[in-house]
């Protein structure tokens, strides 16, 4: 890899100072940098200023209360996975945090960084000379998408793990920026466009993630090329509530398959019935219909479609088994 491009680093100690710093043209926010440093070393982006958000106290800390969980955006993934207020009541979230990279990535990487992770693609996460030799691509410097050359948009896949369980739990995000604070559902942070998947205005950054209390039992699983360290080929979170043997609540969230993480639509049709083989098959079909993996990874798109469905079916089955005495 190349060295880092020229930049200077600012380390604001308050939200207001970070917002002021974010008004500088060519500035970029960073926390753990496990993804951004690799991209910068690949010649992707040349921010004149990096604004390291980790010295801001408001971005730290995990608090649990009657309103649920409040997670600072600069909380490290290792911290998140081990915290008793997370690991006990929100096992899917802890599992997703533990499924990010290797131990050293989780010591540096943060919640905010994982939620704002850049999208990934075979034709994008490559060295500068590789991309130049390939004529670049729509996401950076070029104008076509090598994955779908006749298409109009970039198909790079969102590959953050945390988004899936947080969507399944109905999390919201608090965003700071030049126009003050705003709070919105996590899902509204994302758009289905690999080159513009984050709906953050210039100068905005994540402050906190808020997860509602009394979560439904949930689980997260991902398929990946290397078990010990890898981005998801498909990542699935399932939250399932049962009364007796009938499903009274179901939320399924997917990551790694599309340019954004998303909540599966149409799960209401699966309510009221027990989780049996036929039910699982219907869930799997629903997943297959809504995911749209493209040739952005070394593994085939069709494999990712089927593995996403298989994971959803398996997780729902495990959750139902665990709930049935």
């Amino acid at each position: 890899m190349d060295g880092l491009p020229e930049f200077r680093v600012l380390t604001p100690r308050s939200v207001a100072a970070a917002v002021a710093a974010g008004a500088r043209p060519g500035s970029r926010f960073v926390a753990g940098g496990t993804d951004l440093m690799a991209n910068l070393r690949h010649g992707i982006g040349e921010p004149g200023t990096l604004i390291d958000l980790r010295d801001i106290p408001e971005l730290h800390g995990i608090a649990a209360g009657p309103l649920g969980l409040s997670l600072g955006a600069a909380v490290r993934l290792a911290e998140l996975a081990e915290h008793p207020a997370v690991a006990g009541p929100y096992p899917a979230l802890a599992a997703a945090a533990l499924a990010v990279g290797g131990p050293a990535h989780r010591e540096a990487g943060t919640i905010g960084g994982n939620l704002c992770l850049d999208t990934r693609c075979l034709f994008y996460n490559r060295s500068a000379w590789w991309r130049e030799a390939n004529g670049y691509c729509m996401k950076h410097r070029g104008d076509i998408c090598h994955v779908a050359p006749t298409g109009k948009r970039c198909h790079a896949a969102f590959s953050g793990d945390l988004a899936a369980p947080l969507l399944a739990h109905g999390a919201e995000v608090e965003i700071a920026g030049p126009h003050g604070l705003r709070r919105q559902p996590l899902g509204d942070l994302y758009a289905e466009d690999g080159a513009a998947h984050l709906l953050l205005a210039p100068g905005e950054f994540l402050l906190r993630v808020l997860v509602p209390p009394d979560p439904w039992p949930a689980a997260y699983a991902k398929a990946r090329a290397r078990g010990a360290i890898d981005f998801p080929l498909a990542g699935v979170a399932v939250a399932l509530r049962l009364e007796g043997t009938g499903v009274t609540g179901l939320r399924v969230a997917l990551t790694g398959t599309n340019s954004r993480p998303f909540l599966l639509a149409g799960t209401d049709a699966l309510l009221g019935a027990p989780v049996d083989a036929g039910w699982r098959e219907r869930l799997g079909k629903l997943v297959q219909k809504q995911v749209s993996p493209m040739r952005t990874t070394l593994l085939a798109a069709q494999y990712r479609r089927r593995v996403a469905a298989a994971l959803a079916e398996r997780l729902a089955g495990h959750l139902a088994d665990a709930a049935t005495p």
Partner: protein
Amino acid sequence: MTHARTSPRPSRARVRLFRLNGTDHAALVADNVLLLDYLREAQGLTGTKRGCDGGECGACTVLIDGSPRLACLTRAQECEGHHVETIEALAEAGRMSRLQRAFHERLGTQCGYCTPGMVMAAEALLRRDKAPDEAAIRAALGGNICRCTGYVKIIEAVQEAARDAP
């Protein structure tokens, strides 16, 4: 491997204070210098290896405040106020540490290139968990790739070091 990159706006070097292998250290370093380059090129601490150089292999694992971190994805500037430890810090008075000795005696190293990273990742584990089980060792070394050993001897080395701990 090129590290030269022309830019109209050179990053200014500033003095950053941190601890390096147990000693207070003042580093005159530009904001865009990687910890890996600082350790190897400026400090001559070449025990920290440049492997994949892209955050995927663990060969450049060092400890920052006792936690494993990848020096190829970390800026030297980020270390201000923290304690950076490299493989060079483990030997005491010229003698290998218990963990290093276990890697040596259990043949946990072959070509040796991944070894400093493996040892530092294992060191971080053993400081936190004096008696890790095999699953914990495998998890702690999950980010470190070895192309020679097949990992079995490495895991045995960490188990032996844990067993021999006082």
